[in-house]
Structure formats: structure tokens, C-alpha cells
């Protein structure tokens, strides 16, 4: 088989798989499989009298030596009431080393700084990017705890992601966060920009729920509890510490580009659920990202570690290496690889 045919076959195969996951009759199948009808979709008024506080984090690998990497991590919060931002905060930019294999001193230290106790599980991933994401989550959860302690009853705390944790050390942290919110009457929700949730053996859940709403002419903003249908969702995680919330699909504005998934604690009654979605919908009218809660975008823009910041960190590291008597040749010897050479061509 020649290269062209090989390539075309691969493309055809991939397209076929996409078609399989989203067949022509996806909506009909979803309707039959879930039993959802128009009454399953709940309307929420885009009105909210409280504050919405969003938490987001950012992480990036600054330098990679192969045997270890250096990453920059931070988390930020942005809180709005009405159209005005009343809180705009960030953690310092943390520079940490992330190494494949067992244990990470920087993670342990940072975790202790945040929660005044050592992590229950060490950072043992082989992938430095995954390790960095765990460190970022640590900062995000800590920032969320700080804000949960400050917000008033009835306000909403929004996390970027899910209520599931990606590292065992965060299990008790999220429990504490949920308890704190519950105790203080602060609502909490996790917004996922892109979800891996599927149903019926691999069909994506968001396009199916959105397609059915369209077919049923459901008026926005709406939300649908997809985890309410018994056995609908494919990927129930095996480990119970990862399961904390009900899964919802929502579309918050008639002009929204797309629907997305929201996770809300299982124990919320219908009034609290509606209040959560009303709060999200009331901030989903920004012209730039219509349909997406603006405080989350603001937190995202605040926390994003751009190339400028990365370059600055690199320069600062080189400067301090110089103070330790190391040369630029030492720097390139440790952190340079042939990718840099290849990138020039």
C-alpha cells in the first residue's frame, strides 16, 4: 500500500469513528435511551441577587531538562455582583520543579502551606505535565476555600473543571471545601468546558442533550440533569472518591455557541439547583463569550500564564544560575535539546 492510500484510509477510518460516536439519529437514540422529554429540561431565569465567584488556575512548563522540569503555577479568583467585579485576586506565581517518579518536595511544601497538613498521597506521576496540573489544582482548591470562607450565604462559588479530583491528596480537600460551603450556605458548582462523559457506549453527552433540546424547542436558558437517568452515562469512575456530584448539561443563552457540562453536589435540592443555574445564566450575557459565565472567563484571563511571563521566569533563572557561577553553556547543556535547533528551520 502506498503512502497516500495509507493516509487516506486512516482519515476515512477516523471519520467513520466520529460518525459512529455521533450517528445521524443521535438525538432519537438519546431520547429513547434516556427517556428525556421536554419536561426533563428545566428553564432558569437569568436573574441572580447574589455574588458569583469564579476560581481558575493555570500551569505551564517553563523549562524541561528531561530528568526534571520547572513549572509555573498559579490560581486566581474573580467575583462579581451585578455587573461589577468586587474581588480580583491571585496567588503568587509559584515556580516548582516537577520530576517523574516518586515524591515531589515542592508539592509537599506547597500543599502544607495551603492546608497546614502534609498530603495524604505523594505526587508519583511520571508525566511532569500531570504533576504540574495536580499542583495547580492544589492552589485552586485552596483559593476556593479562601473564598468560600468569605462569600455570603446564597452566593455561588464556581470551579473550573469538575468536583472529581485527579489526585488522592485532594480528596479530603474537596470534602472540606464542600462542607465549608454547605455550612456557610454558599453554593458551589464546577463548570467543564469540555467533558469526556459519554452514553450508549461512547456517544458524547453534550451534543446529544443539546440536539434533543433543539428538537423539542426548549427555550434557553435550560439545564438537564443527565445523571438522573439510571445507567445512561457510560463512564462511572470506579473509585468512589472521585464521585461527588450530579452531572448537568446546560445552555445558558439563546446565542450561546454551545452547551457545556456542570457538576453540582448530589445533595442539592431543586431550588438550589435552579439558583445555581440562574446565577450562571445571569452572567452568561457577555458579548465576547455569550453563553459562558463571564466571571470564569475573567478568572481565566487573570490567571493565564502567557509567553511573556514564561520568558521572564526563564531570564530570572538564567540570572540566578549566573550568580551561582554557571554559564549560558551550562544552561543550554541542561535545558537545551535538538528541538530548539530544529525549530530554527
Amino acid at each position, binding site marked *: 500500500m502506498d503512502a497516500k492510500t495509507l493516509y487516506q484510509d486512516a482519515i476515512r477510518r477516523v471519520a467513520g469513528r466520529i460518525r459512529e460516536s455521533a450517528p445521524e439519529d443521535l438525538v432519537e437514540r438519546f431520547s429513547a435511551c434516556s427517556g428525556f422529554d421536554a419536561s426533563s429540561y428545566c428553564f432558569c431565569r437569568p436573574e441572580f441577587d447574589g455574588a458569583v465567584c469564579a476560581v481558575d488556575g493555570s500551569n505551564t512548563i517553563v523549562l524541561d531538562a528531561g530528568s526534571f522540569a520547572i513549572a509555573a503555577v498559579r490560581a*486566581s479568583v474573580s467575583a*462579581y455582583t451585578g455587573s461589577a467585579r468586587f474581588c480580583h*485576586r*491571585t*496567588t*503568587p506565581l509559584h515556580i516548582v520543579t516537577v520530576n517523574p517518579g516518586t515524591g515531589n518536595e515542592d508539592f509537599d511544601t506547597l500543599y502544607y502551606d495551603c492546608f497546614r497538613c502534609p498530603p495524604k498521597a505523594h505526587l508519583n506521576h511520571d508525566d511532569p505535565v500531570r504533576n504540574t496540573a495536580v499542583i495547580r489544582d492544589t492552589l485552586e482548591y485552596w483559593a476556593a476555600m479562601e473564598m468560600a470562607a468569605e462569600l455570603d450565604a446564597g452566593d455561588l462559588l464556581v470551579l473550573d473543571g469538575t468536583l472529581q479530583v485527579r489526585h488522592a491528596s485532594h480528596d479530603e480537600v474537596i470534602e472540606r471545601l464542600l462542607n465549608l460551603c454547605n455550612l456557610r450556605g454558599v453554593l458551589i458548582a464546577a463548570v467543564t468546558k469540555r467533558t469526556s462523559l459519554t452514553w450508549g457506549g461512547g456517544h458524547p453527552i453534550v451534543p446529544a442533550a443539546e440536539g434533543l433540546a433543539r428538537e423539542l424547542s426548549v427555550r434557553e436558558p435550560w439545564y438537564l440533569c443527565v445523571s438522573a437517568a439510571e445507567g445512561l452515562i457510560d463512564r462511572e469512575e470506579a473509585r468512589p472518591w472521585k464521585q461527588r456530584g450530579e452531572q448537568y448539561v446546560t445552555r445558558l443563552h439563546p446565542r450561546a455557541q454551545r452547551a457545556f457540562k456542570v457538576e453540582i453536589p448530589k445533595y442539592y435540592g431543586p431550588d438550589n439547583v435552579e439558583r445555581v443555574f440562574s446565577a450562571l445564566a445571569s452572567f452568561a450575557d*457577555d*458579548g*465576547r463569550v*455569550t453563553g459562558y459565565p463571564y466571571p470564569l472567563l475573567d478568572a481565566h484571563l487573570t490567571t493565564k500564564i502567557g509567553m511573556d511571563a514564561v520568558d521572564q521566569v526563564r531570564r530570572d533563572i538564567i540570572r540566578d544560575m549566573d550568580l551561582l557561577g554557571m554559564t549560558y553553556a551550562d544552561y543550554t547543556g541542561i535545558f537545551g535539546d535538538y528541538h530548539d535547533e530544529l525549530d530554527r528551520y
Partner: protein
Amino acid sequence: MNLIDIDGSDASKYRLIGDRVLSYRFAVPHDEELFLGEILKITDSVKGLTFFAKVSDLLHDCNFADPNWDTRPHTEHFYGIGEDVFILVEALPLGYVGVDGAFRKPRTIPAKFSRVERPGSDDFAFLRQVMGDIEVGVMKTGQDVLQDVQVALPSAVMRQHMGIFATTGMGKSNFMKVFCASSMQARAFGLLIVDPHGEYVAGGRSSSGKETRGLLHYQAGREGLSVFSTRSEQFRKKYLLEQLYLDHDDFRAPDLLLLYEHSPPQREVVEMLESTPGSDVIDFFQKTDFATFDAETYSGPHPRIARDLKNFSPSTLSVMQRRIMGMMNRNRGFLRKRGSSIPEIMKALHKNKVVLIDIPGMSEQSELFVLSIITRKIMRNHQGEGGEEEPKQVLITIEEAQRVLGSGPGSTQIFREAAMEGRKFGVGLCVVTQQPKNIDARVLAQLNTFVVMGLSDRGDRDTIASSAKQDLSRLDTEIQTLEPGEAVISTIGIPFPVSTRIHLFEDYIQDLNERPRAKPIDDGLDKTF
């Protein structure tokens, strides 16, 4: 571990981010009220220099990568828009003041992120050193004026000609009256102005119908004004005006070229008689019957003229005769055989007075006729002066100058001569026109002072921009948006084009009348001793 409050203050605004020496750029909040033409101060604390720049363009901009963020339908609400959405300001460098207080042209660039702010009157102290003595208004910055920064034209450059460009209703007459009043006060040069509408003497009505005052109302400056008028004796006596007379010898045949279209033979007749005294020409044409005219048998008092005209056809000469008679008839109010006001006019001009030729109700031809004669007399007088002394300075105003300084064939030799050569004899022209594009480019190139009021025609603005000694092209938008009574003034000595709010004449003369007069040094000696 702590969560740090992000500083809400925005350092990205009002700091220089441009990258060019000839164009500055900075951002201001999206809801900031900033106007074209506004002058801003840029403080370079690194080099200790203070730069000045004029806002030349304003545009909305943002930090978003998405170029369509603001054009999508149904996007009426935006949170926190002021952080990433802003107005980008383009500013034209004017120059900078160094530690020595001297103003220099913008040949260097302010340090990156130099602070940009609105200047106060004190910041323009350097301008007082370069401003002239003929006050016309106050400096304008955007929509406001800096009351303490007077704009004054230097009288010393008046011989290098001046242009006043404005369409109807933009305040041209008001400017001229303010200019006259300041000239009456300064007494630094003689200013000739011919007024066929009779509005400069005692006022009248503006183009908008509003009642206006005249130069006579500037009582404190009365000594600096001489008026030669064709009005009734009663009026002249009331206001102490001189009667205007021109005599036949003031006239020269080329003056006819201004009044009529001439065929080539007729033009030859004019050229033939160019140096013949006007009284002889008039007398010859008054007394000769061209139906029977024969140069060989002519026995009248002007045989030389008869000889000169012997080869012209009787019909050509008859036409010339009719025209001379018409000219005599049209100007009989002030044209007589003997006795001219020209010597008095000249004397007044050389005493650095404003000389107003007030000929209300006269035709356009009469206006040009008078102006042509006086201009020629001034030119010949100054050309004949010679000597070691600095020649007296006289500025001759030509209203609707495109009539006599257009780019067509040379029917206006004397004005062209004044424009091209007047400078060295101390004679300047004040060219007033609504249509600068119709003025001969060679004449425009001679002008060193430009007073540009509102010009809506792009061709006119382009003509001005290409003729001015300072770069006015980047002030095009500002010139286009000038309001009545506002002007952009470019002149020698003032280091950059200055936007000016021209004084309102009525307010200005009231102020001048109330100002204490400068007393001569020996005033009061009689009483003291």
C-alpha cells in the same frame, strides 16, 4: 500562602507606547473625552525633557485577539469593558523643551512609557518667548482654550506675505477686524484694507445676520487708523474720516485689464500705453473721435499717443474709448482730474497705521481698480526708496484674492509683482480667499504665514498643506472640523502650527479699550517739574 488583591489601577493608559519619532501613540480609557487638536504634554523623566504633541487621530482598539468581538449581532453587554478596550491616540509631535527652557523641533523620541498628561498654561511659558506682537486669539487645545496663552503673529514677518483661508461664515471678517485692531495697537507696519461692503468702519451685519462693530469702535486705538471713504460728508465729518480721491494721473492703462476681458489687440493697446501718464490717456480718449481718427493728421495735444496707436483699427480704439469712459463713469465718486489721496494714504501707511479704504456700495470692479492703483503706487514708492534704511513695512490686503492672483494669464501683473518681489521692498500681501486651490501655486509658495480657518473642500486643504512651510497635512482632520472663529495658524517664528480660537472682535476691542495705555516716557514731566 495568601491571595493577593490585584491592583485595580491601570498603568497602561496615558503612557507613551508609540515607536516612531514623528508619531506618538498611547492608550486612554475607552470612555475618555479627548478631542482632535488637543495638545498633550509628555514628560520624559529619564532625559529630563518635556515633549508636546497634538492629537491627530483617535481610534477604538482592544487587547482581544478576536477582531470581530464588537461586530457580532446580539452582543450588547460586556463586563469589565474598560480593562481591555481603550481609545488609541495618535499624536503629532510638536517639539520639546529641554532643561534650558528652549523649545526645539522633535528630532528625538521620548523614553518608552513616558507619562502623557494634559498641560497647564504654565507649560506653555516657552511660547510667550516666540509669540509675536499682533495678537489674534488664544491657543486652543481640543475643545478648550488656554486663556493665558495668547496667539500673536510676529509683525516682522508680515512682509513675507500672509494667507487667510476660510469658507463663508467661518469668521474671516472677524479675524480681519481683530487683526486690524491689533495692528492699530502695535503700530508695527502699515496695513491697507479696501472694504467695498462698508462693514469695517462702523460695523454692520455679519454673514449670519448678527450686528457687528467696526474699527472706529476701538477708540483707544483710533490714532492707528486712517479711513479714506466715499461716504457722505455728514458721515465723514461725524467720524472724522478723510474723503477718498484718486486723480487721473493715478490711473495707468493696465488697470483696465482688471476690469474687462481684453482681446489680443486691445491688450496690445494697453501695453503700448503702460507708461503713459493716466491724465494723458484719459484726455486723449475723451477728446478723440475714432470714426475719423488718423494718426498722421492728428493735431490734438497728445501726438505721441496718436503715433503709438496709429496701427490699431478704429474699432479696437473705439472699444478702448468706451471702456475708459465706463471706468471714469463707474468711479466718478472718487476719480477726478486733479487731487489724489494717495500721498496721504502713503503717509498714513508709513506711520504704521491701518489704512481703510471705505467704498460702500461700489462695484467689484471699483474695488479692484482702487486696490490696483494703490498697490502700484506703494510698490513704485518702495522701489524708489532705496537707501541704507530698512524699508517701511506695508501689508496690502486682497480680499477674494483668486480674482487677481489666479493661475490664469497675467491680467494682474501688479499683484503678482508684489507677491514675487514685494518682500525685498517691505511690501507684503495679505491674501484672503475661500478657494486657495484657485490661487497661483507660485504665489502660495511665497506666503510664510497661513491662517487656515474651516475649509470643507479637500482640494483646498491639499493645496494649503502642500504650500505651507510647516507640515499641515497631518492636521487635515482638525482643519476639516474647525468651528467658526477657530483657525490653525502657521507662521515663521512660532515653532509649530497653533490651533487658535480667534478673539471675538467686539469682546477684544472692549478689552483693548479697557487696557491701560502705555504712556510716553516724558508724559507727566510738565506736571512734575
